[in-house]
């Protein structure tokens, strides 16, 4: 089935797809976005149900293999110690993300020059800075200005409450003389732009029915649809098509909500399918001139997969910490150990995040991102009565380095509900990341004790959190050298001049912060570069 051609075709309506659509609005080009998931209404979010927690282990799990919905693609992670997680709907993974919003730092873009590892990015912090600001305004970001861990900027809204838990931990950091700051969050601390402020429900991963969290389903998409961007939902792109003579992308083939296979022509194709979905789509788009997958002459499509490996330490305090009240991931963040210090025995570093705790069922089942239930019997009673209400924890978020053997490939057997090959993840924890986590775990214990914990609990093994592949980066890296990278310094494929990539797959390094603020700033930057270079876009 054929459809009328469009100027710009965006695949994926998540964080990055929405941001670039917004950037390109002013060009008045005809923009179409194809999204494999549905548009969920507020009433579809489980936080309005009595048994809301159950959905975290069923249809609202962050693990697509658990959800197993028609719009999900399965992921084979048998050869990985971390399971990539996501959400497939309008808003993408910002439906169930936690809204923690730190920026990357100037040094993150220059790791080769500064530390002799990985590669420098072809863009830098100063270039992205105005796009971070722009995105913060559109999204509605809360935080406290004056953080000495960053060059100067001001979040548009005051910080959300850090709560008893945050205040307690802050005292611990102060006791140690280490950096901490209230977290920047894409969660409204005040009513903003027609949206309601956060009611501290504490289940941000179940979709924010208040609309306070900065998912693009609440921020960008209502504006975009009003402005005439066409959003076709339940449309899964199977393949990007290419003119075999010119080597230019001609559009896509997709499975529509009507059950039919469609052809959609476009002048410009932008891929925004996240760090696993994007290489999967390119690898599925093989042709005579791209036998190893589209835009893959460098062989780098799918390579250098980076996560943020995590571990956590929990302190048990004398008073209830009320950790379930307030946005889940966001209270305070320490970046004391973010930058390289050669005396520590590793390069780069980590953040110490104080998420809040969670609701009783999730805790009993092992906690968010983990999956080892607490013991049954008398020990269960003891943990739930004497530990659970009193906990405050710190999560060590490590910077992963790019390593080519960590990768996304196509699984030879597994397919999604449309019969399209599913991704397979091969990932093992690098030695540097392992050392970072160990160091972080020790420092976290010290802080918790300094903050007054009467007991400190850690997992006590070497394993990182399993269901914590929230951040997927590096699999179509940016670079100036076409033999070592997939896209150039402003997101355009080296091999296919009218193909752009805007999600976390274009990251060169991972930093040690949640990526979405940077993903969207980059998408806005790519959009801006398209506009600036419009006359010579395909040269």
């Amino acid at each position, binding site marked *: 089935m054929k459809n009328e051609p469009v100027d710009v075709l965006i695949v994926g309506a998540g964080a990055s797809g929405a941001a670039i659509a917004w950037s390109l609005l002013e060009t008045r080009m005809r923009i179409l976005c194809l999204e494999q998931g549905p548009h969920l209404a507020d009433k579809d*979010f489980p*936080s*309005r149900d*009595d*048994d*809301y*927690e*159950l959905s975290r*282990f*069923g*249809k609202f799990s962050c693990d697509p293999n658990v959800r197993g919905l028609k719009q999900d693609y399965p992921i084979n992670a048998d050869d990985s110690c971390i399971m990539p997680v996501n959400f497939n709907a309008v808003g993408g993974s910002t439906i169930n993300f936690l809204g923690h919003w730190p920026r990357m*730092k*100037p*040094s993150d*873009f*220059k790791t080769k*020059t*500064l530390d002799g590892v990985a590669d420098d990015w072809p863009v830098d*912090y100063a270039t992205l800075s105005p796009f971070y600001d722009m995105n913060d305004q559109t999204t509605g970001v809360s935080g406290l200005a*004056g953080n*000495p*861990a960053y060059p100067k900027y001001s979040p548009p809204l*005051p*910080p959300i*409450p*850090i*709560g008893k838990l945050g*205040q307690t931990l802050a005292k611990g*950091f102060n006791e140690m*003389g280490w*950096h*901490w*700051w*209230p977290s920047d969050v894409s969660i409204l*601390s005040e009513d903003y732009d027609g949206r309601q402020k956060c*009611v*501290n*429900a*504490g*289940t941000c991963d179940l979709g*924010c*029915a*208040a609309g306070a969290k900065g998912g693009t389903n609440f921020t960008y998409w209502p504006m975009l649809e009003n402005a005439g961007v066409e959003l076709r939902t339940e449309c899964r792109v199977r393949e990007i098509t290419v003119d075999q003579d010119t080597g230019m992308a001609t559009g896509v083939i997709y499975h529509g909500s009507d059950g039919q296979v469609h052809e959609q022509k476009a002048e410009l194709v932008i891929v925004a399918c996240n760090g696993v979905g994007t290489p999967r789509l390119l690898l599925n788009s093989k042709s005579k001139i791209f036998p190893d997958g589209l835009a893959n002459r460098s062989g780098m499509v799918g390579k250098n997969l980076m996560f943020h490996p995590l571990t956590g330490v929990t302190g048990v305090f004398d008073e*209830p910490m*009320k950790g379930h009240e*307030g946005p889940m991931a966001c209270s305070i963040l320490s*970046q*004391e150990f*973010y*930058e390289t210090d050669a005396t520590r025995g590793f390069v780069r570093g980590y953040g110490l995040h104080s998420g809040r705790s969670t609701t*009783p*069922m999730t805790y009993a*089942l092992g906690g968010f991102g983990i999956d080892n*239930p607490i013991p*049954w*019997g008398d020990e*269960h*009673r003891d943990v739930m*009565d004497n530990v659970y*209400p009193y906990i405050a924890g710190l999560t060590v978020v490590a910077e992963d380095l790019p390593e080519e053997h960590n990768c996304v490939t196509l699984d030879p057997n597994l397919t999604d509900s449309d019969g399209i090959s599913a991704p397979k993840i091969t990932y093992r924890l690098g030695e540097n990341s392992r050392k970072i986590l160990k160091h972080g775990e020790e420092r976290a214990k010290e802080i918790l004790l300094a903050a007054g914990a009467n007991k400190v609990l850690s997992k006590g093994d070497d394993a990182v959190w399993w269901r914590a592949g929230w951040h997927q980066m590096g699999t179509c890296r940016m670079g100036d050298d076409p033999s070592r990278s997939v896209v150039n310094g402003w997101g355009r494929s080296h091999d296919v001049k009218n193909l752009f990539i805007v999600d976390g797959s274009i990251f060169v390094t991972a930093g040690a912060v949640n990526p979405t603020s940077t993903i969207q700033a980059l998408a806005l930057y790519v959009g801006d570069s398209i506009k600036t270079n419009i006359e010579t876009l395909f040269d």
Partner: protein
Amino acid sequence: MDELIPANEKAGVPAAGALGVADFLPAATPYAIDPVQSITEVLKAVDDKIPDFAKLVRTDKIALLKDVETRHVVDFATLVRLTYMGYYSRSDVRPMFGVGAHPVQPKGYDVARESNELMDSLTAPVRARGQVFRDV
């Protein structure tokens, strides 16, 4: 079930069996591949060992369950998981752990924002130490 999540009588927290969590298990198909099969396997293993489990003293019950757990790892783990789910998904249980009985939306929780003075005094030592990022 009462042995998986026992009661805290002093605090008025009921055990899982007494609360009727068993009713949750057969319908738990979204959360386990075949809950009925797993539960039947565990019950059969208990029954094979000792047909009158209910009559055992508590320490013997626990010893027996631990034995079944080691011999039926997956099914027992499924039973434990589903018991936790059935128990803690109940709105009358959550308040016993300090969490609201209500669905979290739209009411949420009242959490006061720290005053500017409090935030200023908490962050003062951090600001005093100055820049902690590298100039590039």
